[in-house]
């Protein structure tokens, strides 16, 4: 940590906006909060009297619960609005919805939205801090941070690791945040997936696009698999999930090409038997549930840090 460093971010819109110092500081802060979740009484008064609104325009179980638990363990007052219950169905614009919520003086708005850039749009109209809990196919910064935290725990570092990301990069905001985050922290990121699911110009994010699964996974320290979204099958992107599993799925044999101590990650929810075989998902190298545990700590850290700047 450089001397005189201060965390100055008011919003968490994406890994793109964070410096390596910011990321390291968030991860250290998260580390120090992790212990709270192991106590009998899992609550500290840090954010008492602060109001946090979860504004979810897209279905989410894990991320929403994780943010909610994080806020409650910090003693914040939390309120959750989901798309079905919101004004969105009545034709109100996002900006109007946000302004109305802002008029009730929340300190932090945590938003998930199906359109890229929605969180950034919000910051132009309201004064509260905004944490992006996933916007379209853009970024999912808290997921990227919890992935980095999990790798750091298991590998002791991020620099110089080989991180392989396998699957649907085109539609994955997690992949975008991971590529940006790991490369900022000095890791080398290799991606592989069907060409139909690799966005054009991906190198701009800092990743190396591989031409085979072998190239991506050989000697990898981290193997990250991504969810293939069944609901996108109406587009002619893939012939079948069956073929995807055969040609792109991560099985034990595939994993054997990675380093012997490689860890396996997945942002969830998993399509077992498609992108990840069950024996790998539940195997000794899987750290998938550690990711979920660290998610709470990372989100506690984010709430704490942006509150300091809001």
């Amino acid at each position, binding site marked *: 940590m450089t001397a005189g460093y201060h965390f100055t971010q008011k919003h968490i819109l994406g890994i*793109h906006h964070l410096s390596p110092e910011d990321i390291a500081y968030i991860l250290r802060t998260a580390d120090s909060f992790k212990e709270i979740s192991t106590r009998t009484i899992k609550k500290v008064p840090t954010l008492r009297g602060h109001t946090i609104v979860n504004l979810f325009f897209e279905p989410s179980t894990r991320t929403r619960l994780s943010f909610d638990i994080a806020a409650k363990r910090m003693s914040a007052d939390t309120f959750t609005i989901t798309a079905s219950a919101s004004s969105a169905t009545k034709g109100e*614009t*996002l*900006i109007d919805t946000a302004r109305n919520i802002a008029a009730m003086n929340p300190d932090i708005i945590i938003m998930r*939205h199906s*359109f*890229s*850039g*929605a969180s*950034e*749009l919000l910051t132009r109209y309201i004064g509260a801090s905004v944490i992006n809990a996933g*916007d*379209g*196919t*853009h*970024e999912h910064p808290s997921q990227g941070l919890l992935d980095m935290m999990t790798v750091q725990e298991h590998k002791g570092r991020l620099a110089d690791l080989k991180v392989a990301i396998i699957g649907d990069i085109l539609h994955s*905001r997690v992949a*975008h945040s991971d590529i940006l985050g790991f490369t900022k922290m000095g890791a080398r990121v290799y991606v592989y997936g069907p060409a139909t699911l690799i*966005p*054009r*110009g*991906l190198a*701009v*994010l800092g990743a190396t696009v591989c031409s085979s699964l072998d190239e991506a996974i050989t000697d990898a320290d981290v193997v990250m698999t991504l969810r293939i979204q069944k609901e996108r099958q109406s*587009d002619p992107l893939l012939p079948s999930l069956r073929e995807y599993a055969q040609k792109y799925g991560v099985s034990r044999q595939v994993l054997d090409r990675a380093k012997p101590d490689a860890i396996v990650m997945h942002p969830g929810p998993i399509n077992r038997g498609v992108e990840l075989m069950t024996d790998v998902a539940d195997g000794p190298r899987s750290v998938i549930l550690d990711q979920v545990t660290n998610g709470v700590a990372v989100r506690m850290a984010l709430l704490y840090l942006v509150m300091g700047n809001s």
Partner: protein
Amino acid sequence: MTKSWLFEGGRIIDPQNGTDQERSLLVVDGLFAAAGTPVPADARRVDAGGCWLVPGLVDMHVHLREPGQEYKEDIVSGTRAAAAGGFTAVACMPNTQPVNDCMAVTALILERARQGYARVYPVGAISKGSRGEELAEYGEMKDAGVVAVSDDGMPVRDSQLMRRALEYAGDHNLAVISHSEEIALSRHGVMNEGQMATRLGLMGIPAAAEAIMVYREIALAEYTGRPVHIAHISTAMATDLIRTAKARGVRVTAETTPHYFTLTEEAVQGYNTNAKMNPPLRTEADRLAIRQGLADGTFDAIATDHAPHSSLEKELEFDLAAYGIIGLETAVPLALALVREGVIDARRFVELLSVNPARILGVPGGTLGAGTTADLTVINPDQNFVYTLESVVSKSKNSPFLGWSMQGRAVMTMVAGRLMFELTP
């Protein structure tokens, strides 16, 4: 009301008559007067020193939104913006509500235009309702006053329909203007497909979506022997196709817009919905290719694709925001930048913005010839100004150029000898 004008000390640029020289220009009773005509005693004298006097500018591609979306723009406000930008005539696209696909709508537009500040040349629809299914009634629309047909904004998917449109429009002496876009490739996209789309997590529109349809139009024009005009070219690929087609004699003409020769996809940074248009802003390589095409004659015209949208359509998530930007008031300074940078000369500036669009549409104008109607634009190429929100004349303010420092602008716009705009200091 002054009936005569004497412009003194200006640079007359009139490619049609081979003129580029400093001399005075006399307008009497709405017409350009021949040299040696006595100056009427009551003529208003205008010191045009340092200015260009050029044939009235013609924007062959605008959206005036009337009828149907008058909260965005109407014919009076749109032509006022045109005059303020130096245009004496505009061709308005038919994607109004209802679509201009019959003589009743055409007649309504022309009726409204009588209160306007610039000539209005309606463009009729290629197909009824621009649905791409059956031909609209070109004969009657021509009688009512349309100068061309286009399904702009709703690209014609059916190649047979497009072929028939070229053939049938030829019978009625109407230009056919193609919005060239292969929808199957573009329909999920909201900006150029490439690095910036990947960075922003936005779905892309590939350059191939434009090139494929441009080639289809070239093939149909070549096969039928009928002319076709290609609207708002944004890519290097399509520019190359047009260049080679022209070289082998195909009757194809093409326009591009100031935003494609000025901006790139970088302008979308920050999810700027004022940089969202269709076709989208492309890459630097595309921008340079467009400029090359302007320099070497591949492009015949600069049009604005003036597309007003209110904040209701623009202050939104990028995916939901409407496509299009206003352009009438920024075209002259942005095109003058090409002259300063040596891409085109002053003569070519006039050809691109006046002579050629008038010729392609088959309308009068594009000349300062003695005895012709006095449609005139006076441009001060050196005047500096900042394009501010408050200064926008159009009803809508959706421009990516707000806040830009610009050099050069129209200072007087005259239609048939009547002053439609004068810049007040």
